[in-house]
């Protein structure tokens, strides 16, 4: 990840250290109020989500269960600063298997939305979101791409989507 991050945040991912006085006990409610977040309190911490997670397979420190525990505990700043929040690949394996029927990706998305609203978007996502807002695509289509498409027998795509910016403003 290329998100700009403080050394504190790095520390939070490695060794969470916290002061009981700093806990935000309303954080779980804040997440629970978002669509799909309502079942967060049902987690009995069995680790089924982690055990099937493809991201955890390559990044052993990533744990959806740990994120849920951190939210329930009220570690608001630590969760919102964490890089791990942005690693979920939305494969929904955890949700499919969760014995407590918790919508784990929705909970992570809720936390992401709270982070984004506070301006804590990682740099690469900022670039992506700027691109989508401006041109309606993740990357620009150029003449070069269209030439390749024509060669493959595919229709050309519009290179400029002037309406997008207007739509996004609304």
């Amino acid at each position, binding site marked *: 990840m290329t998100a700009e991050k403080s050394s504190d945040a790095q520390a939070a991912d490695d060794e969470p250290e916290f002061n009981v006085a700093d806990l935000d006990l309303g954080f779980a409610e804040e997440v629970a109020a978002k669509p799909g977040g309502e079942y967060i309190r049902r987690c009995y911490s069995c*680790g089924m*989500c982690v055990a099937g997670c493809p991201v955890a397979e390559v990044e052993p420190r990533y744990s959806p269960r740990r994120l849920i525990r951190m939210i329930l505990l009220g570690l608001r700043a630590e969760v919102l600063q964490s890089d791990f929040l942005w690693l979920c690949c939305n494969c929904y394996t955890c949700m499919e298997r969760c014995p407590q029927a918790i919508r784990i990706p929705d909970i992570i998305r809720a936390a992401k939305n709270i982070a984004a609203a506070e301006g804590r978007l990682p740099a690469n996502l900022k670039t992506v979101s700027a691109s989508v807002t401006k041109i309606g695509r993740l990357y620009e289509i150029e003449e070069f791409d269209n030439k390749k498409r024509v060669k493959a027998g595919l229709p050309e795509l519009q290179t400029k989507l002037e309406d997008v910016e207007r739509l996004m403003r609304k």
Partner: protein
Amino acid sequence: MGLAKGSPRTGFYICHCGTNIADTVDVDAVRRHAEELPGVVVSCDYKYMCSDPGQELIIQDIKEHRLERVVVAACSPLLHEATFRGAVERGGLNPFLFHMVNIREQDAWVHEDRAQATRKARDLIRAAIRRVAYHRPLERMRVGVNPNTLIIGGGIAGINAALNLSMAGKRVYLVEREPTIGGHMAKYDKTFPTLDCAACILTPKMSAVRDSRNIVLWTYSEVEKIDGYIGNFRVQVRRKPRYVDEETCVGCMQCVDACIYKDARFPSEFELGLKKRKPVYMPFPQAVPPVVAIDPKTCLHFKTGKCKEPCKEACARDSIRFDQREVVEEIEVGQIIVATGFQTFDPARLPQYGYGEFPNVYTSLEIERLVNASGPTGGQVLLRNGQVPQSVGILHCVGSRDENTNRWCSTVCCMTALKLAHLVKEHTGATVYSFYIDMRCTGKGYEEFYDRMMREGVQFVRGRVGEVRDWEMAPEEEGKLVLRVEDTLAGFVRRIPVDLVILAVGMEPRADAEAVQRMLHISRSNDGFFLERHPKLAPVETTTDGVYLAGCCQGPKDIPSAVAQGSAAAAHVLAMISKGHIELEPNTVAVLDDCSGCKTCIPLCPYHALTLNEESKKAQVNLALCKGCGTCAAACPSGSITQNLFEDEQIDAEIEETLAHV
């Protein structure tokens, strides 16, 4: 509305219930209000009306003041209506010339404003005093109790209930679907936490059933139809043909040896398919009755009609009966104990665990057979290729505590898993991993057993296994089953390669529980198990009088609990037999002469108490079945059904007086 004959002499009593009522209702004000009402000759309050001195007040006043009616304002009639009716009766008055007003649950407990709550109490008691004037003396009906009992299911719960009743000299019909009794317990190897051999403690009880002259044992049979009511049930039992004469067969196995099939080649039901049997077979050596059965689906005689029938020839007692037919027996019993048991969860419903996909993934029940000395491998825990496993993973909570399958905790799987950990370790010397979410060892000696397993070196990992796969990502995973699990206590994901996986499968209601429920008119809880009448104070009775529950058909439980419940059910049955009759509450309905025979009421009755009298063409009610729910009385288009204690003039008076000051 007014009373033509003048108000009857009424006694009114209001209870403080300690502070439960008195804190919110001005008891004294209500008492004074009652004093002024027509007919009231006694009005008094008392700290605890349900206590002996409280009841004594009523008894004395009935005699002294020649009371004709009694009203008590206290808690819910569910709690103490019977208490006060008893007091009224002891005072010499018909117990139904009494009415109870609930000013606790329906007033004091649900209101905070004292003035308002007091006003509500005044309205309610006024209505009751007015209503009770219209009460008529009623008599409880007495019905005799047939002393015979039907027990459905011959597992340990049913067996124990049958033996208890037999000990008391009572006749029992024990009906079992399988060719032998014994149920699930007969399949277990050892029992936790004492590790005594299941067969050693069960088979003497099974033999005792066989030897008892009071127990009529019908195996390979199913209850088909039940009519009637407590004390007088009529039951039809379908006895499937086993093509062997039960009276003469002694289980010598000559027929099995002689069978035209030289090798056993059909999956044995008792051994869960892990062993083969012949078309003529004995489920297991200690089966009761010790009688073989012939499976017509695999027997050559039935399949082709061209078998030489060497079994028949081999039988010295001429017990093989290919012409045996199904028989439907009709019996009469007074009470019924339901002990139909459970089924284990089918782990194929959780594809991530690879049951049915990987041959070395077993259920806990299958492992019970493998570790059993008389099981398919003679007590050796072996992989499908015949090798001894070096490492074994036991997964808890498979089909338990899971919103996707069964939500409940099956209560015994933790202990089963611990027991199997011990047995597998003992039999193979393998490294045993136990994957749990929460270790639930809540019985006597259970926690100590868990402690013993920790000392024995079972590797405990707190985490639910995500998946069982055979993808190898490291040399040590080659040819192994890999368990992916988060060690939630250490906080990281582990890949654990093992040779053998044991799924500790949960308990669930039998697939045909709904059919049994309908046949008996009982209820089931959300989880599908049969519902007890009260979760704490009536855990054995059902909502149908005379029908009791025993064992896992009511919910997952261990052997001691199933045995205890079997005995408890037998105690209920014996109590009723001892009494010899039942008294039926007289809050029943009566069909009036102007019934037009429209039959509207008949399908509405939840207790099947109403039928059409073919001669008079009018509805008739079986008072022994009527529970006084009032559905028919409300539905009758011509108002031709009345209900005792809920007659029109009683209810009208009550409503009128309740609303008199609104």
